[in-house]
C-alpha cells in the first residue's frame, strides 16, 4: 500500500498546480481575444469625402471626413443606438449583445482613411469606449452596471459624432437625475425621450439639449 503513497501525492500536487496554471492561461487567452477585431468592414464603401456640419456648434469650420470613415461611423452609431434602446427597454441581454457589436464596429474602422489629427482623436476615444462596451458586454444581468458604463460611453460616442458625424440626425438628450442628480447625456435618433438610464421607471424623463446633423 505504501508504494502508492508517493505517486498519489505527486498526482495531487500536479492537479493543484495545473489548475492554477490553467486558470492563468485561460485569462491570458481571454485578454488576447478581446483585442481581436474584424477589419473587413469599410473597404466596400466609395471613396470620397463628406462634410460634417453640426448645429449649435461653436466650432464654425466644418470638418472633412473620408466616406469610408463616415460609413464606419454610421455603423458604430447604429450599434450604439441598439444599446440605447435595449437599456431603455430594460433588456440587459440585448444590451450585452450590442456592447459586443460596438467593440467590433469600432475595431472595423479603417484608420488609414483618417488624417493624423483625426487618428489621434479617434484612438483616444476608442481606447476608452472599447472598455466600456466590453464591460457592457460582460455584464448581462447587471443592468445597473451596464448603465454606468453607458453613461461614460455616451460621452465618448458624442465626441466621435462631433468630430466625424454620425451618418444620421441625432439628438443629444439629457437625464437630469442620473449620477445623484449630476445628470447624464445620451444620443438618440428621435426627439421623443425614452430614458435609457431608468427604463420603464422613468421612461419619458429627460430633455433634448442639442441637435447633431
Amino acid at each position: 500500500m505504501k508504494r502508492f503513497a508517493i505517486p498519489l501525492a505527486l498526482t495531487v500536487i500536479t492537479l493543484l498546480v495545473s489548475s492554477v496554471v490553467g486558470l492563468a492561461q485561460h485569462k491570458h487567452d481571454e485578454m488576447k481575444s478581446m483585442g481581436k477585431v474584424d477589419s473587413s468592414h469599410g473597404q466596400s464603401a466609395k471613396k470620397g469625402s463628406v462634410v460634417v456640419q453640426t448645429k449649435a456648434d461653436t466650432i464654425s469650420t466644418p470638418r472633412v471626413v473620408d466616406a469610408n470613415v463616415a460609413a464606419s461611423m454610421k455603423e458604430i452609431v447604429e450599434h450604439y443606438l441598439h444599446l440605447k434602446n435595449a437599456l431603455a427597454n430594460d433588456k440587459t441581454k440585448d444590451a450585452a449583445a450590442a456592447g459586443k457589436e460596438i467593440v467590433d464596429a469600432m475595431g472595423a474602422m479603417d484608420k488609414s482613411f483618417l488624417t493624423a489629427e483625426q487618428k489621434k482623436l479617434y484612438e483616444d476615444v476608442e481606447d476608452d469606449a472599447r472598455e466600456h462596451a466590453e464591460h457592457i458586454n460582460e455584464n448581462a444581468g447587471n443592468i445597473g452596471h451596464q448603465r454606468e458604463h453607458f453613461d461614460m460611453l455616451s460621452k465618448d460616442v458624442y465626441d466621435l459624432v462631433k468630430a466625424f458625424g454620425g451618418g444620421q440626425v441625432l439628438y443629444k438628450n439629457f437625464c437630469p437625475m442620473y449620477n445623484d442628480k449630476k445628470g447624464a447625456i445620451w444620443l438618440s435618433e428621435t426627439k421623443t425621450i425614452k430614458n435609457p438610464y431608468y427604463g420603464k421607471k422613468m421612461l419619458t424623463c429627460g430633455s433634448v439639449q442639442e441637435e447633431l446633423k
Partner: protein
Amino acid sequence: MKRVKQILFVLLIGFIVMQFMQPARNQSGQVLQTDISPTYAIPENVQTLFKNTCYDCHSNNTNHPWYSMIQPIGWILARDIEDGKAKLNFSELGSLSSRKQISRLQQIENRIKDDTMPLPAYQLLHPSARLTEEEKQLLIGWIQKTRDSIASKR
C-alpha cells in the same frame, strides 16, 4: 484505519510541497511618477485612505498579510491582486489618457457609493479598510473635484 492514515499522510506531503511554491510578491517597493500622488494634487488624508483601503489589490505594492505565506491561500490572493490590477492600478493611473483617467475615477466613485468596494471579505480581514460615511464623502468629494479638473484641462 491504516488507509485513513495513509491518505492523511499523502495530503500532508502535498501540503508541504505546496509551501515551496510561493507566488511572486506584488511589491515593487517604489512609487512611480504615474502614481495617484504625483499625478494629482492629493491631500495626505485622502491618499492614506486610498492606500489603506485599495492599494493591496489595486497597486504595485501590496501589504501582504502573514497568511499569504500559506498555500493555497497565497495563490488565491495573488490571483485576486492580478485581477484587481488589470481593472485599476493606482500606481499607473498617470500613464492613462486623460479620458481613461476620468473613467477610472468615475468607476472608483461608483464602487464607493454602491458599497461594493472594498470587497466585503477584504473588509472582514482588514477592519481598518471599512470606510465610515465621512471618509466616503471625503473620497467622493476629492474624486469629483479631480475629475472636473482633468476635464477642464483637456
